[in-house]
């Protein structure tokens, strides 16, 4: 097994919007070791989210290689990629993206519907995930009955529940106040340090980036530096 969790080799990503052709990433290379916590920073349009989407298997590069956890995900088809995501990646979004019709525990259970676990096993895993994020007592609440911070904790529990090694977080504190944001970032730190999760986090906020082990700067589709 590779020592790196993520290996990006000479990746280019071009979007075509009508007649326009926009090259967002230009021959980008990146290595992220296992159990790392990386903050991706850069101005709007620098390609942070695009890179995150490629690493998370939500999109495919125009050229180049993307290897995550030893799998060449740039070579997978749509269905294979979906199955790969289900078992290997946890996603956390800026606006939580919970299902409003489901309770917190049902939201967390959603990824487990793709596994062969029994209902009892699923319930147990959900309880553990909600315990980790400190929301065991809000399991029966629907998203609209929770605060922003609590919603993000539920989203993190959903990302954790199938025990992926890699968490990709797109501006996870972008919609939260400073205090709540710090709580969420503290939780991500715990997941990284105590549970060994590799975390890649896109953020605009330098204070949020300080919670990471490393900060990477992207500008105009290229990595500028890798700061410790």
């Amino acid at each position, binding site marked *: 097994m590779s020592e790196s969790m993520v290996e990006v080799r000479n990746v280019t990503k071009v979007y075509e919007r009508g007649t326009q052709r926009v090259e967002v990433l230009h021959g980008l290379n990146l290595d992220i070791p296992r159990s790392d916590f990386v903050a991706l920073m850069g101005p709007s349009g620098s390609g942070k989210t695009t890179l995150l989407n490629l690493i998370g298997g939500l999109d495919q590069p125009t050229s180049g290689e993307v290897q995550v956890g030893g799998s060449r995900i740039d070579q997978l088809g*749509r*269905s294979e990629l*979906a199955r790969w*995501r289900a078992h290997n990646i946890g996603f956390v979004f800026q606006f939580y993206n919970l299902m409003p*019709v489901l309770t917190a525990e049902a939201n967390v259970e*959603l990824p487990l519907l*793709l596994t062969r676990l029994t209902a009892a096993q699923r319930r147990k895993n959900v309880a553990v995930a909600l315990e980790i994020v400190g929301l065991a007592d809000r399991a029966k609440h629907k998203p609209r009955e929770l605060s922003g911070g609590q919603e993000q904790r539920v989203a993190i529990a959903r990302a954790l529940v199938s025990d992926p090694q890699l968490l990709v977080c797109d501006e996870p504190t972008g919609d939260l106040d400073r205090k709540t944001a710090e709580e969420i970032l503290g939780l991500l730190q715990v997941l990284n340090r105590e549970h060994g999760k590799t975390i890649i986090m896109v953020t605009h906020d330098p204070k949020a980036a300080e919670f990471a082990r490393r900060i990477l700067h992207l500008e105009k589709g290229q990595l500028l530096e890798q700061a410790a």
Partner: protein
Amino acid sequence: MTKAGFVVANLFRKRIRTILTLLSVVMAFLLFGLLQSVNSIFSSGANFVGATRLFVQARVSFTQALPISMLPKLEAIPGVAAVAHQMWFGGVWQENTPLIMLSLDPRTYHEVYPEWVMPDAQWQAFIQTRTGMIAGKLLADQYGWKIGQKIPISSNIWPQKNGSKAWTFDLVGIFDGKDEDWKRRANLAFIQQDYFDESNQFGIKGRVNFYILKLSDSSKAEAVSRTVDAMFENSPDETKTQTEKDFNMSFVKQIGDIGLIVRWILFAVFFTLLLVVGNTMAQSVRERVPELAVLKTLGFTDRSVLGFVLAEAFALVLFGGLLGLLLASIAGAMVERGTGGQFQLRLDGGVWLLGVVAIVLMSLAVGLLPALRARRLKIVDALAGR
């Protein structure tokens, strides 16, 4: 939580919208069930099982009267216990209230229709009074008629010999049904055939619209029917012999091609339903493009997402459809009871089967396009709101 639970939860995200859509599905399938039952009644062949009476009319139309000379021939057919006959009189009460009035021979009619109950003295009075008339209790109660009254009735079909359309009859009896079913039908009146024959201007004499054969053995109904029609085949007065129930149905059939009418109504109903449910499903998918993208992000394949949307459409139409068919079944049974079995609107297996086929087709029609849209969603674009 299960996948089915997730589908149901999504279905009720906008509770009022879903309930209203569900109601439209229920109403459509209620109509479907009842109209298909009507259609199958009218498109079914003759059923002689359990028939105790047969109606004989002219083959072309019951408006073409048959000669009274047929009577002894009909009476002589094995299996026939008694024969009555009737002539349509029509009759209008007061300004413009049409009545069901028939002329008949009181003696034979009483024997063929024991379901009508009236004191013997009144039957005798009817037999002996040439201008006599008897009325069903419902009719008499409705217009306040009392025995002994002279009842003025006009006829748009049959003027008297003096040219007057006004007839006057002596009300000599009021009959009622023997049970609740027959009591509900006691809304007609009878006059003497002899008096009608003598008095009508057109000189229609010795002709009747229908003969009613009372059978000695109901198992012989079909054989008697065939014997009668064969007996008068190739004569100037060819006959059509059918059960009392089929005869009553043939009245309704005069409205037009019932099957065609039913098909057009159902087409309109289902087309409207298609628009209503299709729009609801399309709107529902449009509203949660980001949620569908999140499902894909979590690892649900394109096919799974397509399946979720189709399952929602199917659940909506299935639940509404089955409820509608069930209500149609209950309503049909009530109509059947209310008409004493004359209109057997109970949903049979064929209607249920057709209903289930309609449910599947409707689910596909309303769910497929939104489901395909959900399937085609690109995660990155959908999450970015593009």
